[in-house]
């Protein structure tokens, strides 16, 4: 299967139903009573050009590990970053992981601003926190660009990586399952009686370029569930209606929330839930998601919904149908029964 080399319109994206291996469309999959929950995180320009202050000047690409947290009444603003060697953005990230260790206090420039290292993660010298003495959100938006992908040919700008639902700037990489939707598709489903609800999940970095760091992903991530969404999910659950997650970030937020509180609960929390074949889903019956190749972490987490055999068959079928994979590629709908309620 080939990766999608460029963004394309929602209605040009194809969809496979994993259970029966047939090509389908969002318009025909869902009907009255279904509840689709979407992640309305807006995507940040999370790739930042950094430079050392000494001579000779060394340059790095710093990728946000997670969105900056607001510290009330603080005069210091921290960025949690993963460093890469700077290079041509079409060089694979795996080839850019050799960076020198920076000591505490070392300075790095981001445009006009200087930050200094206040924390280095013991697990990797590439994972560190930079502290600035001015708010970092304007800096990110002034100097950052969206995280780029080696297989995507055009340089991506923020318009390419915002989803239809974008609201709060919380996502380091786009909640890309939402690329399957445009306003027309949304309206068609709403007219048919499909219900929609939103939550915000701070989708973090998706790959580090090193296997031992990828194994840490996803890092614990912030999410927020509005009161109206908690009510909609509770009602749908009580009435035995389907609850469909648009993307893995929505599954993490909803299942993590219910695992913690026992029932859908509104508020702002952190989830460290990792989806796997062992996940006992209590809320989400189905998921719309991008197509990912075997042996990727994304493929593995689909086993929370479906057997390996079915997933491997679906992959072969997607290949035969000429589907494309990765962020801007085609989609899958995968569904499975909920775990028996304890």
């Amino acid at each position, binding site marked *: 299967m080939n990766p999608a080399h460029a963004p394309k319109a929602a209605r040009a994206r194809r969809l496979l139903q994993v259970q029966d291996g047939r090509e389908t469309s969002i318009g025909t999959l869902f009907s009255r009573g279904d509840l689709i929950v*979407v992640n*309305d995180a*807006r995507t*940040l*320009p999370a790739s930042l050009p950094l430079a050392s202050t000494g001579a000779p000047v060394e340059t790095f690409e710093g990728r946000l590990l997670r969105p900056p947290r*607001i510290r009330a009444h603080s005069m210091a603003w921290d960025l949690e970053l993963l460093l890469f060697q700077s290079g041509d953005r079409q060089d694979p990230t795996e080839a850019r992981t050799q960076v020198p260790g920076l000591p505490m206090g070392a300075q790095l420039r981001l445009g006009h601003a200087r930050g200094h290292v206040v924390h280095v993660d013991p697990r990797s010298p590439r994972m560190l926190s930079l502290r600035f003495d001015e708010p970092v*959100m*304007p800096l990110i*938006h*002034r100097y950052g660009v969206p995280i780029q992908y080696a297989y995507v040919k055009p340089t991506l*700008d*923020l*318009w390419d990586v*915002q989803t*239809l*639902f*974008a*609201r*709060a*700037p919380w996502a380091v990489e786009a909640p890309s399952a939402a690329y399957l939707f445009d*306003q027309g598709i*949304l*309206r068609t489903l709403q007219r048919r009686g499909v219900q*929609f*609800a*939103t939550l915000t999940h701070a989708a973090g970095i998706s790959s580090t370029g090193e296997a031992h760091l990828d194994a840490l992903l996803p890092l614990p991530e912030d999410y927020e569930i*509005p009161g*109206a969404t908690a009510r909609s999910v509770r009602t749908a659950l009580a009435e035995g209606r389907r609850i469909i997650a648009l993307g893995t970030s929505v599954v993490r937020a909803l299942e993590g929330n219910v695992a913690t509180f026992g029932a859908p609960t509104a508020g702002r929390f952190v989830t460290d839930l990792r989806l796997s074949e062992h996940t006992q889903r209590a809320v989400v019956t189905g998921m719309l998601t991008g197509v990912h190749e075997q042996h990727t972490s994304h493929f593995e987490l689909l086993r929370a919904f479906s057997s390996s055999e079915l997933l491997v068959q679906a992959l072969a079928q997607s290949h035969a149908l000429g589907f494309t994979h990765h962020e801007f590629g085609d989609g899958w709908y995968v569904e499975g029964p909920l775990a028996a309620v304890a």
Partner: protein
Amino acid sequence: MEVRMKKRRVLITGGTKGLGFAIAKRAVSEGSSVFIVGRDERRLAWSLEALNQGPKHAPLAFGASFDIGDKHAIHPLVALAQEALGDIDMVIHNASTLGPLPMPLLSDLACEAFEAVLAVNLLGPFRLTKAVATSMALRGSGDVLFVSSDAAVSHYTNWGAYGVSKAAQDKLMGSFSAEFPEMHEAALPGADPQTLASPDAVAAWVWNELLEAASSGVRYTAPSMTHAQAQAPHVQTHAQTGAS
């Protein structure tokens, strides 16, 4: 009837002077928070300082310097406004440009100057509305206000590009309104801040009328004012279709 909070989180383009600044002042004086956008950084700093004067625990006014006619300004400014305000309940498309001054006859206007007028007065509001409308509609509340002009309906010499941009912006507002079932038009009476009343008087009126309109879902028309017209497609799930 749904009780609406009077404290709003408002994004105002062209919010550093004139009507935009007056609305920002009014909003802040009633406890709402604002994010103002203007091109001139010094003017912005001055406006924010003026808005944040007074005995408050935390500032209610935020802002950033962007050119609303620049496509690449839109997502950054929305993100910064979201971050500063917590959420955006209302967008006021107030920024506009007349083009080169003194305003030349249409035939004498440079092609690039016409494009620049359309970029600020028409494409900016299109892009900004597109960037916020779906999430507003899904969350069930939000207002988008367009500030129009009588030049959108009448024809004057030298006002060609501006009039075209404002007429098109009215159409933009109507089209968004038709495409969002949650939206309805609230055509607000207005007054030309330059000739009819002070910006502060107009702002007070618009602000109060907006709060009123937000809970009523009625289409308002100007009873006596004929100059500027502000029109608001108003996103609210429970709103009725507007009637004149």
